[in-house]
Each structure stands twice: as C-alpha cells, then as structure tokens.
C-alpha cells in the first residue's frame, strides 16, 4: 500500500508541474524559446528513459537507439502528411511500428553480447537510416516537411506515460528478472529466467517509446531528414543514460534535462558542445564508471533518512 501511495504522490507532483508550465505558457510568461526548450527536454527524457530500460535495467548495450526514433518519426509523418490521419493515431502507429522494428532487430541480435551487440545495433541503425535515405516516398536525403502539431501537453503526457510504464515495469516481477540478467546472465539463466524473452521484451518496450519520442520530435520541427538520426543522435541519448547512472531512472531523467539545457545554450557553438560532451563522458568513465547516481534513484536519498539506512 505504501508503494502505491508514493506512486500517486509522484503522479500528482507531475501533474502540478504540468499545470504550472501550461499556465505560464498560455499567459505568455514563458516565451517560445523556452517553451521549445521544455518540449525538447520532454523528448530527450523519453529517449533517455527508453534507452535506460535496455542499457540500465537489462544491461544490453545498444548504441543504435536513434534508429527506432527515426522509424517513429517517419511513420508518424507518413500518417499525418500522406494519409492525413489525426496526430494521436500517428503517435500510436509510430510506437507500434517502432516496437515491431525493435522485435525484428532484437530477436536475432540479442544472442550477441557486449561489444558485438553494440556494433550490431549500430549497424542496424545505420541500415534504417540508409533505407530511409533511399526511399523517394519520404523525400530521400532532402527530407520530408511535417506540420507542427506538437504542443507542451502532447510532449509532457507522452513523457509521463513513458516514465510511469518503465518505472512500474522495473518494479514488477519482469523488471526484477531484467535486473537479474544485467547482474549475471548465466546465473539468471540457471535460476530459470527465460533470458532471451526478457531481453527481447525490454528491447521492444525501449523501441516503442523511442518511436513515440520520434513522432513527437518529427512534429516539433517543420522538417525531418535522415541525417538527423545518425550515430551522433544515438550518442546523445547514450550520454544521458551513462552520465545519469547506468540503472537509475531518475538519473537519466536528470541528465537529459540538464544536458538539454546546456546544449540549448551552446546551440551556437556545436563543436564546443561536442568537446564538452566527450570530455564529460571520458572523465565520468575514468573516475566514476557507474555514472553520477549509480543505480540509486533520487527518491532513495529521501527515503534514506526515514528508514534509517535500510535502502534496497
């Protein structure tokens, strides 16, 4: 009962944040520059959390996450621009097609481990990008023009849904199975956990939400191009998860929010931004390889005082 109370409390805090920002936006207190930044933050948080379930929880090192985002972006753009369906249908379709792509890629590649899996996912993401580049229906290299439909409400509730589903999944029986795989795959297998099944499921969930984030992203700017979804985008998502702490949901959220703010301010100096990003990444890996929060959550820090050090 106590757990579910905490859940409703966080949900309430989330909705209050939403309402305050919504009020500030409609009354004109937040200009278009900052409201754009907030929407980008929501998108990046979704991407970070959806990669967190693959890398942080299940321990499968995927560096091709932008590929699923690209699938979601293009599918949703086809739905709204070519088939003229409502935006909400496009978001759902983007998630489902990205999920299918995730399963299609996950089933063969998740037999691989560590470095090989990383390279294989990178390869698949590049193949997705090259396929999009060569299909004239979606505009090829020139890209595809998309209507602007994303609002703060869409972005925020999609993000909230992502966080709720993934944090509840993590706390469930399935989530614990995934954590067992992360800690020791052979031991998990010996305990009777169907490791392939849980790896594929985590991959599918991650791909689903990356696809939704892609749909929101596509309708936030007026054009989408295959070049946007290259290796550097995957790297951006990776650094949120790694910096926040491999295995910490709140860490990924925090890192995504902070780094989005930093990169918005450094938007005019992209080289400086990349130099800072890569230096941060190297230094974090050398001196604190678990990331800033490790596997802890921010909420654990608050609980620490109440329960007298009994943090599990």
């Amino acid at each position: 009962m106590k757990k579910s109370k905490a859940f409703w409390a966080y949900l309430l805090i989330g909705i209050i944040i939403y309402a305050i920002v919504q009020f500030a936006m409609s009354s004109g207190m937040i200009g278009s520059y900052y409201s754009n930044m907030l929407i980008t933050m929501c998108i990046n948080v979704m991407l970070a959390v959806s990669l967190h379930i693959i890398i942080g929880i299940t321990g499968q090192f995927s560096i091709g996450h932008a590929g699923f985002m690209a699938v979601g972006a293009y599918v949703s753009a086809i739905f709204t621009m070519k088939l003229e369906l409502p935006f909400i249908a496009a978001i759902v379709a983007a998630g489902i097609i990205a999920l299918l792509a995730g399963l299609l890629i996950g089933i063969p590649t998740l037999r691989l481990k560590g470095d090989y899996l990383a390279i294989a996912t990178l390869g698949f993401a590049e193949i997705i990008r090259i396929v999009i580049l060569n299909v004239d229906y979606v505009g090829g290299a020139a890209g595809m023009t998309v209507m602007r439909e994303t609002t703060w409400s869409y972005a925020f509730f999609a993000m909230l849904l992502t966080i709720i589903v993934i944090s509840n999944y993590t706390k469930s029986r399935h989530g614990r199975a995934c954590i067992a795989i992360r800690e020791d795959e052979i031991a998990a297998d010996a305990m009777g956990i169907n490791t392939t099944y849980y790896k594929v499921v985590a991959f599918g969930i991650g791909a689903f939400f990356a696809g939704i984030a892609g749909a929101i992203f596509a309708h936030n700017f007026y054009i989408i191009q295959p070049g946007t979804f290259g290796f550097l985008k995957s790297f951006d998502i990776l650094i949120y998860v790694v910096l926040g702490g491999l295995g910490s949901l709140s860490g990924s959220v925090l890192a995504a929010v902070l780094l989005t703010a930093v990169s918005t301010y450094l938007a005019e100096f992209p080289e400086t931004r990349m130099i800072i990003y890569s230096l941060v990444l190297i230094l974090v890996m050398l001196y604190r390889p678990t990331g800033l929060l490790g596997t802890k959550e921010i909420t654990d820090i608050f609980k620490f005082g109440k329960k007298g050090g009994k943090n599990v």
Partner: protein
Amino acid sequence: MEWLQQLVNGISIGSIYALIALGYTMVYGIIKLINFAHGDVFMIGAFIGFWSISHWNLGFFSALLLSMIVCALIGVIIERVAYKRLRNATRIAALITAIGVSLLIEYTMIFFRGAQSAVYPSTIENRAIDVFGAQISSLSLLILGVSVALMLLLQFIVHKTKIGKAMRAVSHDAEAAKLMGINVDNTISATFAIGSALAGAAGVIFGVYYTKIDPLMGMIPGIKAFIAAVLGGIGSIPGAMVGGMLLGVVETFVSAMGFSSWRDAAAFLILIVILIFKPSGLFGKNTREKV
C-alpha cells in the same frame, strides 16, 4: 574486362580497410577493447600527410613515414591517458570511453581548423595501364603495393622479432606473460603504436586516392574497417587482411551494379550476417564460454 578493373579497384580500396582493420584486430586481440578512436587516428594521419605534402613540400614516401611516426605517438598517448586505467573496468565502460575519445579527437580537430574539407595535392602521376584489355590505374597498383609491403613488414615484426613474440604472448595470456618477465604495459603500448602507424599510413594513402579529406572522414572507414576485422575473425592478423580486401571488393561490385547509395548498407549487412551466423569470423577460433 570490366570486372577485372573493378576487382583491382576493389582490392586497392580493400587494402586501405585492411590497414585500418589490422590496428583494430591487434588492439582487440591484446586488451579486448574496440578502439573506436582508431578511425580518428586514421583521419589525423591523412591530415599530417596533407600538411607535409602541401605545406612542407615533402614527397609521398616521406609524408607517409612522417604520418606513421606521428600517429604511432598519438596512439601511445591515447592508450596511456585514456585506456590504461580501464584495464580492469567493465567492457561497457571501456567502450564508452573509446567512443568519447573518438568524438573528442574529431571535434577538437573541427574546433581548430573548421569542418571544411581539404583537397590533397597530386604528388603522383596517375596513368592507366593496359592489362589484358582492362584499364588499371597506376595509383591503384601503388596503393596495393604499399599496403602489401606494410603488411609483410607487420608479419615480420609479429613473427620474427622479440616485441612480436611478446605481443603474441600477452594476447594469449597476459597474466602468464607477466610472470615470464614480459613488460605487459610496454607491449600494449607497442601494439597501439604499430596499429596507429598502420592507420596513419592508410590515411595518407586514402588522401592520395580519394583526394578529399575532412575531420569526420574517419567515422565510416573506421566502422568499415571494424567490419572487416570481424569478417576476418577479430584478433587474427591474416583475417583482417583478407576481411578488408573482401569488403572492398564487395563494396566495389555493389557500386558497379548501380547501387552505390546502398554501398554502406551492404557493409553493415555483412557485419550482421557474420555476427549472427559465425561470430568468430572466417579465420577466428571458436571459443566456448566458461562460467
């Protein structure tokens, strides 16, 4: 005789991949790290070659030599500064650091000289040689010759010299090698130096052949060289050579058939097929996982 011409082109491009792949495979064999920054050492090599030919008026071979020496130094610096601390870290931490180093090199280069591309000055006269009715450019043959010479030199170093013996011993079992009195740190640095020197040579050759270089040029050839290393069996030196050449030939034929925009996809497809069906590659040894 069209196909013979394509075959020679494919092998000469493939030999560039093979030279880069050798560095990947040697480093992976010795410390089990995918050195993502290797493609950027290749890029630095290309730029050093460019500066030494166009600004310092050196000839092709002296530029090649200079570039190899500087790249060897850079490789050792990267290893000492970034990777040495990670010997006992998790594989993921090492891989992320390698990605970080790669991006750091790329964007530091862009920061100091801009992202625009440079055009290599022509140092070597390119003629078409008629072989059995096929037009084969002398440049392709030169590239092939230089690459093969470097590979033979590498084979000599690895199999006939003391440092080569130490390298083989460390890659076989680093602990036992240490007990036998081999300085493991120096051997690993030597491996990085040799691998990076080969990448630097590949950079100069790439510049002379394609004439256009830019700070992000290392990414795609770097990943393709990794594919070549996996194709041949990572950790195996002859495997990297054969894998590189094979990849070059496949790519050239895909382009020649009119699918040049799908060329990169073909390389990745080869990678995935190899990883799924024969992860040990063509020349690799099968290892069973022990608990």
